[in-house]
């Protein structure tokens, strides 16, 4: 999958002397209309050289955070620090932050070369320096021969690369990317994900990346901040985000998820017993529950559920209502304890073939794979 002609280390040499910059949001709030808060009390430490993704549905406040960091929106309250220095009063052009915009924002009246030279010219570099740096940046994104073209003469993927090169050419310590891959088709998007990831690894620059695409977030990031309702719901490395969601929103938003509602009836030895609304009792790992008597929503990943394994720690009965053949797996939709959308991914080996629609089966899982989270209305 990974593109064969990936840029290699020796091409990627913008000769950095400074590593990435550290960013700190300290109690930041933002309101546009004075009535509602778009960002509510944001506290976030981004480490130097980190690739941090702000992930969330539209309207969750992630882009606003990025705009505040870039300096285009002032925080209503709180302070943002760049390498320990408060930057709240600093206008965008003095922050020295590289930025890749959603639709690339390449200057249509300039050639690709002039676009790349723009930040260098603004900084008053000599013509020879500018020429050398522009050429190196073009080499980095493998578009060495395209310096004389206009952005409109490039394909979407090429424009995207130029936008990335332009944000990096003046060697900023921090680069912001605002849904940079949103306009590309699926295949190109996947390829660009790897390229951006490799550029980040090679340059050591801090990257703050905004997206609503969870695959992008999981593939590229060191850590992901999941935004919803103006708050960070969870800040974790990708694997932890998927394996151990801290609340129901994250469990729902990242990957596929089966929900079962119930009430905690007993807490014992690090696990809890939950009585489902249908009366069945299951064991679960308590992650985000208030204690005995509290309502809870159980979260189960479809690939952690087995069918027909009566020896599993927890077993329940279910009826197969639909089977979808996906090649490597078979996706089974079941009705389990009042949930008609209970999905199980069955690996495609002999056992699975015997499943039939309408059949009653046993579903089972390990207690640690069943997370008891905060209740959500169903």
């Amino acid at each position, binding site marked *: 999958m990974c593109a064969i002609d990936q840029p290699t280390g020796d091409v990627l040499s913008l000769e950095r002397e400074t590593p990435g910059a550290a960013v700190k949001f300290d109690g930041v709030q933002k309101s546009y209309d004075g009535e509602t808060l778009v960002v509510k009390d944001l506290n976030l430490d981004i480490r130097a050289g980190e690739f941090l993704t702000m992930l969330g549905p539209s309207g969750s406040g992630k882009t606003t955070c990025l705009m505040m960091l870039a300096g285009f929106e002032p925080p209503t309250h709180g302070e943002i620090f760049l390498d320990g220095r408060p930057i709240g009063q600093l206008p965008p052009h003095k922050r020295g932050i*590289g930025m890749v*915009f959603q*639709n690339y924002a390449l200057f249509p009246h300039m050639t690709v070369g002039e676009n790349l030279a723009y930040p260098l010219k603004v900084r008053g570099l000599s013509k020879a320096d500018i020429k050398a740096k522009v050429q190196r940046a073009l080499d980095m994104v493998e578009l060495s021969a395209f310096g004389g073209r206009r952005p409109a003469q490039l394909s979407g993927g090429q424009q995207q690369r130029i936008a990335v090169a332009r944000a990096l050419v003046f060697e900023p310590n921090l680069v912001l990317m605002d849904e940079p891959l949103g306009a590309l088709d699926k*295949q190109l998007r996947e390829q660009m994900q790897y390229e951006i990831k490799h550029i980040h690894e090679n340059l050591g620059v801090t990257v703050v990346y905004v997206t609503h695409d969870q695959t992008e977030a999981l593939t590229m990031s060191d850590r992901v901040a999941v935004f919803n309702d103006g708050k960070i719901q969870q800040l974790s490395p990708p694997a932890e985000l998927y394996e151990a969601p801290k609340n129901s929103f994250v469990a729902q938003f990242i990957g596929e998820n089966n929900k079962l509602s119930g009430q905690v009836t007993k807490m014992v030895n690090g696990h809890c017993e939950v009585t489902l609304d249908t009366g069945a009792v299951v064991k679960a790992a308590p992650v985000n529950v208030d204690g005995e008597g509290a309502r809870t929503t159980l979260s189960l990943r479809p690939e952690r559920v087995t069918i027909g394994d009566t020896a599993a720690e927890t077993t329940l009965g279910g009826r197969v209502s639909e089977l979808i053949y996906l090649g490597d797996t078979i996706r089974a939709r079941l009705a389990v304890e009042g949930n008609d959308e209970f999905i199980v991914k069955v690996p495609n080996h002999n056992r699975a073939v015997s499943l039939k629609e309408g059949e009653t089966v046993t579903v089972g899982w390990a207690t640690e794979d069943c997370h008891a989270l905060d209740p959500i209305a169903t």
Partner: protein
Amino acid sequence: MTDAAAVPGAVAAQDPSGPLTTADGKPLKQALRKANAKARRNALLLVLPLFAFLLITYTIPIVQMMTRSVSNPEVAEYLPNTAAAIADWDGSDLPSEDVYAAMVADLNAGGRSTIGRVAARLNAELAGVRSTMMGAMRDSDEFQAPYKDALLADDDDWADPRLWKLIQRESRTLTPAYYLRALDYEYDENGDIVRRPEYLQVYTQTFWQTAWMSGLITIITILLGYPVAHLLATLPPARANLLMILVLLPFWTSLLVRTSAWIVLLQQEGVINDVLVLLHIVDEDGRIRMIYNRIGTIVAMTHILLPFMILPLYSVMKTIPPSLTRAARSMGATPLRAHLTVYMPLTVPGLAAGVLLVFILAIGYYITPALVGGESGIFISNLIADRMTGSLAQLRLALALATILLVGVLVLYWLFNKLVGVDRLKFG
């Protein structure tokens, strides 16, 4: 890379070894033409009425205007014998007896009205010709050969070589005389082209005044319109609509209402002068004259032409994504620099369209300078209109002036196209 690799393939497809053909072997271009012929015919039929309308009401009158501005039929038509006989005269001394005989024959043949027209035409070039000719016409049936002596006896102006040189010159059916007059030149007594006396030079000066005042008005509309267009393009839609209505308001008010409003404001007993006096900025005797002169014309025309600058600018600015200036600022450009190097160059197509519209509209403006321009603030159109109501010669002069104006505008348009490229313009 996938997208880069696709480019050579596309180029190869466009460059085949031979001409492309359809499946049954016909050349592809021919087949395409045939397939599109019907659509083309239909399109032609759709524009035909408008085309005919423009031909009758626009193209033909303009051609007529241009031919009439150089037409000079009087001598050739009403003094045909003289015109033929004098063609060979070398211009030294006086013409031979043949020419005098031909003149008498023409005077005899012509009626009062036809000779009157020739006499008027020639009198415009050389004062006194009319009475000489009309007198000779009255006496013409009594003339006996030799006619030279007879005519000289009738009026000794017939011995003036200037008269005969004039007749010889004006026997041509086309004349540049009206264009010479329109550019403040004339024929002197010897038939050489010379500048008119300074106190008679009105046209070139008015042409220049028209040009520089139109230029100034264009510059003022840019200075006033550019920020408004920018504001319009960046405001939220609801408020932008309200502002847009204010911008278009001049279009919706009657020209006379607008102009009277300016008179109320600007006249010496008007609102502005009253306020200035009240604030002791000027005293009662020092009231400023702001109307019926150039200031009046410039103020009123700027007001009227402002929308023509704002609208094309607005439509272009609306398409410039705000992320471009943001990108420039994120790369270290100050707001001013981002504006000058990124935003402004992208507004050039709208700016150029606005300049072209305003300047060309201004240069042909008539009504506003006529109403508020007084004597000093008039445009060339006002002179053209004035001359049109005069004699035939004055009408032809008006046509010559109008043709010069038209050609001037076309030259400007051509220059503009060279400099900016009309295909880059965005009018809205």
